[in-house]
């Protein structure tokens, strides 16, 4: 007997130890993923909580010890005063009150660390309590174990946290826990005492099983993932289009961002409106350019490049053109941002940026990205107007360049804009050489490469887009393996190919002109730019002209203007490019080519699906709220059904007059009695049950009612007026069930 008790204590201790390790798995990733610097104090707290629970210390003593520990730790970490001076306690109280205020304001980011730590302690305390409840009272741990696994695998998939060993540890602990708990449950169910030998008999095979399953799991061949890395996919789903990615604690911000270092993967359409523009002409809008290709994506050489401020009326300090005599069209355009980006979008040949509030700007010389200066005081950039000289690029000027021998092409410049990673596969360059071998000058070469992407081999696709593997090159993969992709694939590939043959080029990000929405009163064209219009393209440097945009992406057309100031033998294709008629622009050009398009007028599942997802995406908050409210209401109604359901039943059946309604009413009564707690076993006859009910309520109503029902049920006949005669009995019984 005593042996059994001791055994039970030891087993309980094992339960606690395993439980502790399971909880620990939740804490481990925090160090890497959040700014929690001092995990040890929390782990110690967890240990204290569990040890106290194990020894079943009196609840006041237990909570007292925990409180002391929490206070001491808070003091140690956040207050300079000695713990025993107690003055710091007032500061802490103040801080807590202040933080509570912040909480009620919903201003989560302003919480101070000490308060957050206190909250975390409370959370851990609750977790420890829950764990004790699961392990000792319920003897069930599967849910928590499963949650732990889920948590770890999700972290492993979507964050930098490497959970290889964590998963193994969790499995071992979880299996062990479940095994011990099953043992306990069997003991409870069979009301057995626990002889020591029995426990051993149980534990030895348990340990064996755990070991075997781990070894098998470890040694078994593992299928490679059947999906591409889901992260980019998830990212593309994200609503978060803000660009400031400096989140706390290493959580990666997703969306249209500055981070282009890993390109690839599918994305979902998103027609959130970003800008509205009034312009004279269709044109692309630039945001920034990037110069360093890493093999996976784009970064910038100078992380914190030099910035030049320029105020209203000051000329934009960068000129991209070297051709002094270039023909230009002077134009203005008005841009109204819909989302609060810190940067602005601007057209080629920008001269001035103006706004009503006299706000000034600064430009990052490396990225050629214009942001609002001293944005701290402003919530974002409001409406602004750009004056610009829309360039007409001289084809003759471009064609005059045949090699790198030009004073403007300094060594630094060339190094920067013909940079390529060393690992770039040779076949990319071979391809570029092959495409351009009989082209004389840079312009023709660039055109040849641009045209190459127009071949049928290449497909525009937003969904089925690969992410390069660890040892793969983004461009190489696109050019030679997948040949499916969207603007990033096309533009990056073109830049890389140009660079591989020594032509300086860079990668530009921004937006296409957007969707034309009609003419404004002032005779301008009104465009709406959505996230779907986000785009990337290529700029090639011609010493005689400057940076000239090229558009390799299939289905998109370059709307930069060229002047053919030479007797052109260029094919008519040039004109297409030049004039860029009402081409099926932006976004889903490839879809317009897709076969299902033939049934354009008819119903399309894909369209409906897209629209539905779109609708859900924009209104998900409402949906979530509605579902939550609905769920809550349903839950409350369900919980309280004993209170209201009888009234409903009486209301429903009181108006019924026909005898045929009697059986239904009787069955409803049976259900209601069952709900009330008077359960009928399936083998219990109605008569026995009626006696049981009557005995419970000390009446004879149910028997009387039942005998009428029996006639209906087992004789197939109802006497006339059965329902009228028994209605009162029925109502009385229903009323008795009102809790």
């Amino acid at each position, binding site marked *: 007997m005593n042996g059994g008790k001791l055994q039970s204590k030891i087993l309980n201790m094992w339960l606690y130890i395993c439980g502790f390790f399971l909880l620990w798995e939740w804490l481990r990733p925090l160090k890497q993923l959040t700014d929690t610097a001092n995990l040890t104090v929390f782990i110690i707290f967890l240990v204290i909580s569990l040890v106290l629970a194990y020894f079943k210390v009196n609840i006041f003593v237990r909570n007292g010890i925990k409180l002391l520990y929490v206070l001491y730790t808070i003091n140690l970490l956040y207050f300079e005063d000695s713990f025993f001076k107690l003055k710091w306690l007032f500061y802490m109280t103040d801080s807590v009150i202040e933080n509570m205020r912040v909480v009620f304001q919903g201003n989560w980011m302003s919480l101070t660390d000490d308060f957050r730590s206190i909250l975390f302690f409370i959370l851990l305390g609750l977790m420890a309590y829950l764990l004790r409840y699961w392990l000792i009272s319920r003897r069930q741990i599967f849910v928590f174990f499963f949650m732990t696994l889920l948590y770890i695998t999700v972290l492993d998939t979507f964050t930098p946290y490497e959970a290889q060993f964590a998963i193994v540890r969790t499995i071992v602990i979880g299996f062990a826990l479940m095994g011990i708990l099953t043992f306990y449950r069997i003991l409870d169910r069979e009301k057995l005492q626990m002889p020591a030998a029995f426990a051993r008999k149980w534990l030895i095979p348990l340990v064996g099983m755990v070991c075997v399953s781990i070894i098998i799991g470890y040694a078994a061949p593992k299928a490679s993932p059947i999906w591409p890395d889901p992260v980019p996919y998830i990212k593309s789903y994200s609503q978060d289009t803000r660009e400031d990615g400096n989140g706390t604690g290493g959580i990666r911000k997703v969306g249209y961002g500055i981070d282009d270092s890993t390109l690839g993967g599918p994305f979902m359409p998103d027609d959130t409106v970003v800008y509205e523009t009034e312009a004279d002409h269709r044109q692309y809008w630039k945001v920034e350019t990037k110069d360093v290709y890493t093999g996976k994506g784009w970064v910038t050489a100078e992380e914190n490049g030099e910035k030049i401020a320029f105020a209203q009326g000051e000329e934009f300090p960068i000129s991209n053109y070297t051709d002094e005599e270039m023909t230009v069209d002077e134009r203005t355009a008005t841009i109204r941002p819909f989302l609060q980006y810190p940067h602005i979008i601007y057209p080629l040949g920008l001269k001035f940026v103006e706004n009503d509030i006299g706000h000034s700007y600064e430009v990052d010389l490396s990225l050629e990205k214009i942001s609002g200066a001293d944005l701290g005081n402003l919530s974002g950039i409001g409406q602004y107007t750009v004056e610009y000289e829309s360039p007409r690029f001289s084809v003759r000027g471009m064609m005059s360049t045949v090699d790198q021998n030009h004073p403007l092409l300094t060594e630094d410049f060339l190094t920067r804009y013909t940079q390529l990673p060393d690992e770039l596969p040779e076949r990319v360059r071979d391809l570029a050489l092959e495409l351009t071998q009989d082209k004389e000058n840079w312009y023709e070469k660039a055109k040849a490469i641009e045209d190459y992407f127009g071949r049928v081999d290449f497909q525009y696709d937003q969904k089925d887009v690969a992410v390069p593997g660890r040892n793969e090159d983004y461009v190489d993969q696109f050019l030679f393996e997948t040949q499916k992709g969207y603007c990033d694939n096309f533009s990056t590939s073109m830049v890389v190919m140009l660079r591989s043959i020594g032509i300086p080029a860079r990668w530009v990000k921004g937006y296409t002109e957007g969707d034309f929405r009609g003419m404004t009163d002032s005779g301008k064209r009104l465009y709406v730019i959505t996230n779907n219009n986000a785009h990337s393209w290529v700029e090639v440097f011609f010493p005689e002209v400057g940076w000239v945009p090229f558009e390799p992406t299939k289905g998109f057309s370059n709307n930069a203007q060229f002047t053919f100031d030479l007797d052109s033998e260029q094919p008519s294709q040039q004109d297409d490019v030049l004039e860029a008629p009402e081409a099926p622009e932006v976004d889903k050009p490839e879809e317009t080519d897709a076969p299902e398009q033939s049934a354009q007028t008819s119903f399309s599942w894909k369209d409906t699906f897209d629209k539905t997802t779109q609708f859900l995406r924009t209104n998900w908050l409402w949906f979530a709220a509605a579902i939550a409210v609905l769920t809550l209401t349903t839950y409350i109604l369900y919980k309280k059904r004993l209170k209201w359901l009888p009234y409903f039943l009486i209301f429903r059946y009181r108006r019924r007059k026909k005898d045929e309604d009697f*059986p239904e009413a009787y*069955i409803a009564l*049976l259900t209601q009695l069952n709900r009330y707690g008077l359960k009928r*076993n*399936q*083998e*219990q*006859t*109605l*008569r*026995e049950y009626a006696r049981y009910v009557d005995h419970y309520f000390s009446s004879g109503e149910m028997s009387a009612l039942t005998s009428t029902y*029996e*006639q*209906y*049920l*087992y*004789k*197939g006949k109802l006497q006339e007026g059965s329902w009228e005669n028994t209605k009162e009995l029925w109502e009385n019984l229903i009323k008795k069930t009102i809790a």
Partner: protein
Amino acid sequence: MTHEQMNPTIGRILENIEKVMIGKRNVAELSLVALLSGGHVLLEDVPGVGKTMMVRALAKSVNAKFRRIQFTPDLLPSDVTGVSIYNPKELEFQFRPGPIMGNIILADEINRTSPKTQSALLEGMEESSVTVDGVTHRLEKPFFVMATQNPIEYEGTYPLPEAQLDRFLLKMKMGYPDVNEEMEVLSRAQRTTPIEELESVIDLNDLRELQENIKLVTVDDTIKRYIVDIVNGTRRNSSVYLGASPRGSIALMKAAQAYAYMYKRDYVLPDDVQFLASYVLAHRIILKSEAKFEGISAEDVLERVLARVPIPVQRLVK
């Protein structure tokens, strides 16, 4: 069920029987059920608990011809059915009816006689007729056999084959009276032989009418379904080697009709079926030997089956 009102005629018969039988109302009721539904009863019990008294009281109450056959190993079929004897005066064979030619027969210790003799009785039970020397003699109706067998002695017995057990509508045990009842038995025995004082309540014509009425008792499809489910349950049970036959289903239905009628109802309730199931079906199922070794009885099996078959509480949807 005792709360329910009884059919007055049947109530009087039972009261009459109770004048001589103390306690054992259950047995009396069940015997009446068998009598009224035209079936036969197998009583399994030790001697001396009042089996004969019971049958005689029943016979007297309905004013029926009572015959008793004491089965012994050397009993011949002709001792049961009767025999044709040559009458030298008339120069022809004359049939002398045997004890089976009565209305209510007590076949005592039926398992003591040879199968041949047993089957003579059983033929009578099943066919309501006996064949002697190629001549078929119809038995008078009503014809009711109450057979007894002693479960204690096995030496020199011929247990009834399963197929023949099936001929009995019900099988039951009488059991000993409880202390008070037995004291009452003693007191009564001091005074008279009570059976002699008994008067009949109805005559055979009334009994036949009752039997006809019982056939009119409604058995709804829900109840039929319930009966079939129970019988099917015995066929599927893991302890059972051979479940009850359709004859069992019919027997259960007929018994339930009689029972319902007894309680003044013209329709059968699941309660009736539940109550009778064990008496009607227990002797019709053959248990596996494993189950026998585990001490599981046919009654246990039926109890389990009944617990598993849900009571119909709504009409069948067709």
